[in-house]
């Protein structure tokens, strides 16, 4: 009886000691609350024609990046969990519908749903409409894919950022690559969709060509309706010219239809096509794209991305989850979310580790430099709100032995070679002959 009571007494003492030892930790746990989640609105095309090539890859990228960030599984320098430790809670909104509808949805995200930030928009029209509303509501907004250069060129913005370069870069690099392949190019043509993206792309390409090769002339300037789908007459018009090069910023169904229809009629044998957004179709169409077609990926993305640890990781997790390689929209979304994280973490560090206010994040984001999966991004123009990065173009080749689509003869252009400087608009820079451009 005596032994049992000694044992019991010892047990009680050990338990008490353990309890007392644990008390400080319990106290700390009780006094250090978990960071409140950051509510993040993600706006992308979930339905409609733009969903397939842009919206869904963007959505998928957002899903995997947010999941990995919350788990702290993104490689350095993004290894800390969430945004400065705060878990991200996304809300996905469909970008399909009218611009007016998108503005309403944006207001709902900010005012009704209390989003701390919004990462959104593929359509340039939507970006242009949402920007002033973001300023009015003082809502931190990161445009992830829209291409119009006009966002920061028409007025300075405080709460709006774009971590992906704008469309001028695509057309300038396309012109440089075309002239590298055809240094004696006499004339060229263009077929672009008749709306902001297509018109801006063609305008910038023509201006770049005028600057780089003033003697080249335009044979045909074709601007069919968006989603026309049937391009028989346009292909005939191109077949009647002597254009060695045809520029196109077509995407999705129009791009695929045009490639199939012009291939059936032998246009690629007479003219080399340049598709500035062609990378999105290379895996779907595969061998239907003629070898030698010049493809852009709106940046050094996809198969043209460098083999960095961050890119290898991103490709790996994306392919594991979605059973397909990430195309450039997926990269654009990843880049935008990582930019937001870099700014948020920096703002928190500046506040001694505390969760920052939105204005703190805005201040940290301005002029920021950060690593994306495929390039270093510098928020260098648009008063530190517009990112610039390198871009790559290459020539398509279908590897018959391995039955896979590849891009070869890749040329990477530095950011300063294909983006306007901070103190000039895109149009002025192109019209002035791209002064200050620093190329390889």
């Amino acid at each position: 009886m005596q032994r049992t009571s000694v044992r019991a007494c010892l047990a009680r003492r050990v338990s008490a000691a353990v309890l007392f030892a644990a008390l400080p930790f319990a106290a700390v746990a009780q006094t250090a609350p978990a960071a409140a989640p950051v509510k993040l609105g993600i706006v992308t095309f979930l339905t409609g024609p733009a969903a397939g090539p842009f919206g869904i890859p963007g959505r998928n990228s957002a899903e995997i990046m947010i999941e990995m960030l919350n788990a702290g599984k993104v490689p350095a320098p993004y290894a800390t969990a969430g945004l400065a430790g705060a878990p991200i809670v996304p809300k996905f909104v469909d970008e399909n519908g009218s611009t007016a509808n998108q503005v309403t949805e944006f207001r709902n995200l900010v005012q009704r749903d209390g989003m701390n930030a919004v990462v959104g928009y593929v359509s340039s029209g939507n970006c242009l409409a949402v920007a002033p509303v973001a300023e009015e509501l003082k809502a931190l907004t990161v445009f992830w894919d829209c291409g119009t250069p006009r966002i920061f060129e028409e007025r300075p913005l405080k709460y709006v950022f774009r971590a992906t370069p704008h469309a001028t870069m695509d057309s300038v690099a396309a012109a440089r690559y075309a002239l590298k392949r055809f240094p004696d190019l006499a004339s060229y043509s263009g077929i672009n969709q008749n709306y902001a993206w297509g018109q801006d792309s063609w305008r910038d390409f023509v201006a770049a060509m005028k600057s780089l090769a003033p003697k080249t002339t335009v044979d045909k300037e074709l601007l069919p309706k968006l989603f026309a789908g049937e391009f028989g007459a346009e292909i005939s018009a191109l077949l009647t010219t002597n254009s060695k090069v045809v520029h196109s910023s077509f995407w999705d169904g129009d791009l695929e239809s045009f490639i199939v229809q012009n291939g059936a009629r032998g246009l690629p044998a007479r003219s080399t096509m340049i598709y500035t957004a062609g990378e999105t179709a290379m895996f779907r169409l595969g061998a239907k794209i003629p070898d030698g077609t010049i493809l852009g990926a709106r940046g050094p993305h996809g198969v043209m991305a460098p083999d960095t640890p961050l890119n290898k990781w991103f490709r790996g997790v994306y392919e594991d989850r979605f059973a397909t390689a990430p195309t450039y929209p997926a990269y654009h979304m990843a880049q935008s979310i990582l930019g937001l994280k870099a700014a948020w973490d920096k703002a928190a560090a500046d506040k001694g580790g505390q969760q920052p206010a939105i204005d703190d994040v805005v201040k940290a984001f301005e002029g920021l430099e950060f690593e994306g999966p495929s390039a270093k991004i510098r928020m260098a123009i648009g008063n530190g709100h517009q990112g610039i990065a390198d871009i790559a173009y290459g020539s398509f080749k279908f590897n018959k032995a391995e039955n896979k689509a590849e891009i070869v003869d890749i040329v990477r252009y530095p950011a300063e070679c294909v983006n306007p400087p901070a103190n000039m608009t895109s149009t002025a820079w192109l019209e002035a002959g791209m002064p200050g451009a620093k190329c390889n």
Partner: protein
Amino acid sequence: MITVIAIVTDGLVYAAWLFVVAIGLTLIFGVMKILNVAHGAFYAFGAYAAATAIGLYFDRGWPVAGGYLVVATAAIAIGLLMGYILERVFLRRVYGKDEVVVVLITYALFLILEDVLILIWGTDGRSAYQPYTEAGSFTVGGLPLSVYDIGLVGFAGLLAIVASYTIKKTTFGRLLTAVIYDRETAAAFGVDVSRVYTVTFLVGAVLGALGGALTAPKISVTPGLGVEVIVLAFAVVAIGGMGSMEGALVGALIVGLFRAGAVHLIPQLELFSIYAVMALVLVFRPQGLFSRAQPRKI
């Protein structure tokens, strides 16, 4: 010379496509006096059904020639199914009602069917190029032309002949003409107007689906393609005259040639050309080229 060849061939190809799409719409309006906005849905479903059927067919490595039969079969099947359901379940209840009500119902059906299409096939585009690419090409005056496109012109011509023969020479065609001119009198003479309506709607639906099915091998079939085509079909029908098959043919030819000419000669006017032609025709003949002006019944 090559430009002239291009304008003529491109115009005929575009006109052929427009005619196949528009003839069903004008038939339904001519007989049933229904402006069927859901015609765009028939087109879209026909395109998706054909793309799916072509994919399944060619995945099995079956002969190319059979692929064309697959296109037609898919169109007929989906057109009959959709036409039957829409006519029996919805439209039969509103015969004789105010035209605005009927248009609103067909518009609502169109919007519903656009979402049903996404529920069935998802948001990704569908590709089924084999019938188009396997047909090959040939050259005329130095201009490569697609065999499939020229085949479409031939098909549209055949369709026009069959439609004309059916209307003018067959018993059903005569019944149809009687109902077109005066439904009440036709009914008074013992014509089963309800059956004529059903058959007409089914034929119109099949023709709409056929338009989509024939287009599917040339394009990437994506959500929203019905919206684009219904606007064009209305323009053709308005030019030719609502309810007139000859009008649909001539309207399609006018639009096709004008558009081809614009693309080759003044590309900046291409978007505008179709509607400019429509506006010009309607200014001088508000009822269209081949419709008679209707006296107001008191």
